[in-house]
């Protein structure tokens, strides 16, 4: 059976069902998302089969004479990206059957564009020529634009959609230029021809192509400072779409970048890796810095995606450095770190966005300062969010730990590099990663602690109820994935092997040890076995509990007593006494005030003495430096020029006729001048 063909058919069927059943929202959801889930499942099976060594089925639609065929076939490298995309697609579709009743007023549009978006995104890694790739690329972008701008009545959504569309298309321009140049060099649209012709290009051309790829794919991936669209677009879309955009779509940027650099251009000089590593370090720090002080839960997660893209790119950058200096085994270590984190991020960020979506649906707010106490009202959702938080904070035994461990090993191995500057760069990147992971843990203590623990702060949060079975089962699948990929890293590394081999178009000497221990002769290698850690910690905790029980048995029975929290002498604890998210992140606002440039305004209304205020108003906001300093000035210039250009449009027909005749005269003169020469 041709799974790829089946998937394409099911996606189209889902979109059609969404449109046809628009009057019966429940049926449209079930049919549309069910179809998307089946399609994703079949693609997931196909990709796993491909990674396990099976031959992939292919889908080729004949094109017109001028253009190439539409050719889709999974290579192991493509399958490695297709697998997390379709796994997350499956979970998000199951989730949406229950969740998307929130958006039942626009069910047709949502279901149709959702299916089309998934179609474009999951077929992208299977594309085998530039034409199919670009088609999927644009398909994915345009369909997701309609999903971001779904709530187009809200000016916030329109603005998010607009920023997203403009930046995506600007990025796409670079991707188009890249592929057209490669087409010109290779004489064919086929990727196989690119792979043959690319490495033979002169160095200058390669550098230009690298920069095009960096900007074009970097925009999609959310690399700083091109990440500007991400915190607008991801929160604006419905949560199951946000999960896909944040967990899967930005990975297509990583896919394109890796494909271009390693497959088409065959690696490059060391400064490519250095540029990428520096950009990655900056991306991760910028992402986590803004995530830390964000109180909108979906924007917080979106900023965190920027951070994680930074972590992934660190692995890629280190891999390019090692490749440039001929340290193949270390390049493989770095690439496997990057790819492992890519898969992991899809799982835990999907999980976090889905559980945030359920919270949003239950509490009707995105502001974590208004939530609180949700762990008692939505215990399973809270557990899922906790697992996601622990994974993203790289705490063992979850999957984030494994990939961050690998990334640390890769960057630490940087001291094997022959030149001093690259050694220092690699070690500095390790420092940036260390800082990032410390701040990410702080960020998720805040997100989980303020949103789920203690007392609810608003009535909606007080009335929140547990998510539906559909939502919970989707989150459960992803949570199990986070745990499984954390406990059994050897299995995942085994699947990464064929993918990296197909990226490099050749066999690779590769991580032989299932315990994550690369056994090269030099380099600071170690090993980690998360399952053993769990066993150790669990037995230690059990022993301690037994000791405590024994001690209590000797001392006589003393049961735990439930008492109210001490409220400093006031009658009872109220939510107003709780620490807020803003207060929680206050030390960081002061600590990194050079990034945030916080503005704080306190106004007091007093009767007689300032010690007895009647009313205090406090507001605090931060300045988004990249937006204000990097994007605002050129934008202002652009608007100014447009404004000046508007003077040409006087609105009078006579003037326009004058322009026409002036243009015709100028053209005539030009052609006369050409003839005279």
């Amino acid at each position, binding site marked *: 059976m041709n799974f790829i063909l089946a998937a394409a058919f099911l996606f189209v069927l889902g979109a059609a069902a969404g449109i046809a059943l628009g009057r019966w929202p429940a049926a449209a959801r079930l049919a549309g998302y069910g179809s998307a889930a089946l399609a994703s499942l079949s693609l997931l099976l196909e990709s796993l089969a491909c990674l396990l060594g099976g031959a992939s089925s292919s889908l080729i639609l004949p094109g017109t004479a001028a253009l190439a065929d539409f050719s889709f076939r999974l290579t192991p490298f493509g399958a490695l990206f297709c697998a997390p995309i379709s796994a997350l697609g499956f979970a998000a579709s199951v989730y949406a059957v229950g969740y998307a009743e929130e958006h039942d007023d626009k069910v047709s549009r949502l279901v149709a564009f959702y299916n089309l978006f998934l179609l474009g995104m999951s077929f992208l890694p299977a594309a085998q020529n530039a034409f199919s790739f670009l088609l999927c690329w644009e398909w994915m972008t345009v369909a997701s634009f309609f999903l971001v701008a779904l709530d187009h009545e809200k000016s916030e959504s329109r603005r998010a959609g607009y920023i997203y569309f403009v930046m995506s298309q600007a990025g796409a321009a670079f991707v188009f230029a890249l592929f057209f140049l490669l087409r010109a060099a290779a004489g064919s649209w086929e990727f196989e021809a690119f792979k043959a012709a690319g490495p033979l290009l002169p160095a200058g051309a390669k550098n230009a192509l690298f920069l095009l790829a960096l900007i074009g794919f970097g925009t999609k991936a959310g690399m700083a400072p091109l990440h500007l669209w991400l915190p607008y677009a991801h929160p604006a879309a419905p949560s199951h779409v946000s999960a896909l955009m944040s967990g899967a779509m930005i990975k297509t940027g990583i896919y394109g970048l890796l494909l271009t650099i390693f497959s088409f251009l065959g690696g490059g000089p060391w400064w490519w890796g250095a540029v990428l590593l520096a950009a990655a370090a900056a991306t991760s720090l910028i992402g986590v810095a803004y995530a830390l002080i964000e109180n909108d839960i979906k924007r917080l997660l979106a900023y965190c995606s920027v951070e994680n893209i930074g972590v992934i790119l660190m692995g890629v950058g280190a891999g390019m450095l090692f490749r440039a200096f001929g340290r193949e085994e270390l390049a493989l270590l770095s690439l496997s770190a990057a790819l492992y984190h890519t898969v992991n991020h899809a799982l835990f960020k999907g999980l976090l966005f889905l559980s945030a979506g359920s919270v949003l649906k239950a509490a009707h707010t995105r502001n974590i300062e208004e939530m609180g106490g949700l762990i008692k009202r939505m215990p399973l959702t809270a557990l899922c969010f906790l697992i996601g938080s622990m994974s993203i904070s790289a705490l063992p035994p979850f999957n984030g730990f494994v990939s961050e461990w690998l990334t640390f090993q890769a960057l*630490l191995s940087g001291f094997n590099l022959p030149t001093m500057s690259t050694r220092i760069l690699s070690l500095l990147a390790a420092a940036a990663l260390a800082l990032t*992971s410390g701040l990410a843990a702080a960020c998720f203590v*805040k997100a989980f602690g303020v949103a789920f623990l203690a007392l609810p702060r608003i009535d909606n949060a007080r009335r929140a109820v547990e998510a539906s079975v559909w939502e919970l089962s989707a989150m459960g699948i992803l949570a199990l994935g986070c745990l499984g990929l954390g406990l059994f890293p050897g299995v995942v590394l085994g699947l990464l092997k064929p993918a990296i081999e197909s990226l490099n178009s050749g066999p690779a000497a590769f991580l032989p040890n299932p315990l994550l221990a690369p056994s090269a002769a030099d380099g*600071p290698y170690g090993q*980690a076995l998360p399952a053993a850690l769990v066993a150790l910690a669990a037995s230690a905790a059990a022993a301690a509990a037994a000791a405590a029980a024994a001690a209590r048995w000797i001392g006589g029975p003393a049961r735990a007593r439930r008492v109210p*929290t001490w409220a400093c002498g006031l009658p009872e604890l109220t939510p107003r006494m709780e620490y807020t998210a803003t207060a929680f992140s206050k030390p960081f606002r002061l600590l990194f005030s050079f990034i945030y440039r916080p503005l704080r305004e306190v106004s007091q209304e007093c009767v007689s003495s300032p010690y007895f205020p009647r009313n205090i108003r406090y507001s605090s906001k931060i300045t988004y430096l990249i937006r204000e300093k990097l994007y605002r000035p050129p934008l202002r210039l652009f608007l100014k020029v447009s404004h000046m250009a508007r003077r040409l449009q006087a609105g009078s027909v006579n003037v326009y006729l004058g322009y026409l005749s002036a243009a015709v005269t100028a053209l005539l003169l030009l052609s006369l001048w050409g003839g005279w020469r």
Partner: protein
Amino acid sequence: MINFAAASAAQPLALILLAPLINGCVKKLKAVLQNRRGASVLQPYWDILKSFRKEEAISETTSWIFRAVPYAVFGATAAACFLVPVAAAAAPFGFAGDLITLVYLLALPRFFTALGGLDAGSAFGGMGSSREVMIASMAEPALIMALFTVGVETGTTQIDAAARILSQGGWTAFSPGAALAFAALFLVLLAECGRLPVDNPATHLELTMVHEAMLLEYSGRSLALIEWASMIKLTLFLTLLANLFLPWGIALEAEAAPLALGVLVYGVKIAALLAVLAVAETSTAKLRLFRVPDFLGAAFVLALLGLLSQGVLRLGL
């Protein structure tokens, strides 16, 4: 002939069981330095036992997280002990993790303690959590950098292998990078274990406390487990300082004589480090909270310089 595996398996248990004693020694030394008599060095054991037998009061506001925290904290901290060599250069469960794993195993208790602080809903707990994560997010990178200095020097992140290589290297373990990293790790110890000048373990003065503020709602055996875990953490840090930066004398073979020497030398090194800790704590005043980042920034820069100098000096330009 002593079974090396058995001897090395005794190490983590010894760390866990002797941690209260080591804590008692610091308290005693500080008392002596302050011209007090101080409690017996065994007092922490009695405190733990007393708390184990006490009734526990749990806030009505809390969820299961609050009750799970002591076990997660104790379990992860105790598991970290299994990765660290003590008197012999062998860690029985070294295959389970290395230096990086150790750092993240120690991050796990912090994550949970901070959540436990928020769970009861009182402002003190939240304040403690907020301060703790701020301090930790600065201390953790410094810790990683300091440990990476050892990793670059020895070419491995396995802790027992690193201790062995350093010990075999003799005086070459004295390098500028290692000295900087040692200083950084000592500063991190002060911050991570809640010692002066970052946090005062002896105070419950509400506006200055950090670690104690998070534990304010804990009582009975939960409190005992968390307190015990923080004692283990202090011991763990002292052991790291002793074995990664002053590696001489650690037992390399499974003979009775080297093992006995290893235990003796370990005792001497820990005693010396305890004396340094007590003097440092007695002679400094607590920092204002917002001066703590400067303190930890210094630790981070020291560790980074150590790492870079190791990367440059050891391997040539």
